């Protein structure tokens, strides 16, 4: 049973009204991309924000990740829009 800590930033944090949550990964959710799809399946704003056409970035343990990257128990997973610093 893998549990991850999920963080939301910027527009995503505001739109979802959530800053962070702990999630026990459901069966079949083992990668960053699968997590995103699972969050979209929550419906409503979640579905809108995590629509595959929306540019969402995922970081696992503070490194930018690809959809296929695996998730492990205790991982810190962050979801956010493309960055706009500098």
């Amino acid at each position, binding site marked *: 049973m893998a549990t991850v800590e999920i*963080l939301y*930033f*910027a*527009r995503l944090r*505001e739109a979802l009204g959530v800053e962070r949550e702990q999630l026990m990964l459901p069966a079949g959710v083992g990668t960053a991309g699968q997590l995103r799809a699972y969050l979209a399946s929550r419906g409503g704003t979640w579905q809108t924000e995590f629509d595959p056409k929306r*540019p969402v970035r995922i*970081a696992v343990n*503070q*490194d*930018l990740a690809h959809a296929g990257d695996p998730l492990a128990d205790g991982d810190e997973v*962050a979801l*956010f*829009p*493309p*960055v*706009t*610093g*500098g």
Partner: protein
Amino acid sequence: MPVRVQPGDFDISSEIHALRSGRSDVGAIASFIGVMRDFNDGSGVTELTLEHYPGMTEKSLQGIVDEARSRWPLQDALVVHRIGRMLPADQIVLVVTLSAHREAALAACAFIMDYLKTRAPFWKKERTPAGERWVDARASDDDAAGRWQPGEAA
């Protein structure tokens, strides 16, 4: 400390002075300051709030500086990025690179800015006469970072 994230302002002379201190082999100092404009994407901007991802921010900036140092013969490099509320004409980010030669210093400074724009977890929210809005990433920033990829380097 080559990477800092802070709410407060910075002074480029003081930062360069600290980096150079005690060295007489430096020949070239390139630097870049990003500044808040009072106009963006078609409308006036009166205030800017910079949000970031504590922990990952420092890690990603350090990774970008390390990557620059592996590509060019730098003697030192510094990134200072501010967070929180800012007003027009405020300084937002400072990059400084030191090298024996100008080509390395200038290229590394441009490289760090390009990567910072696409990899470092900062987000800008602007206050305009029509209300607040999150700034959208520019596709040209991805293009700029892309030009440093293998096979496309100048």
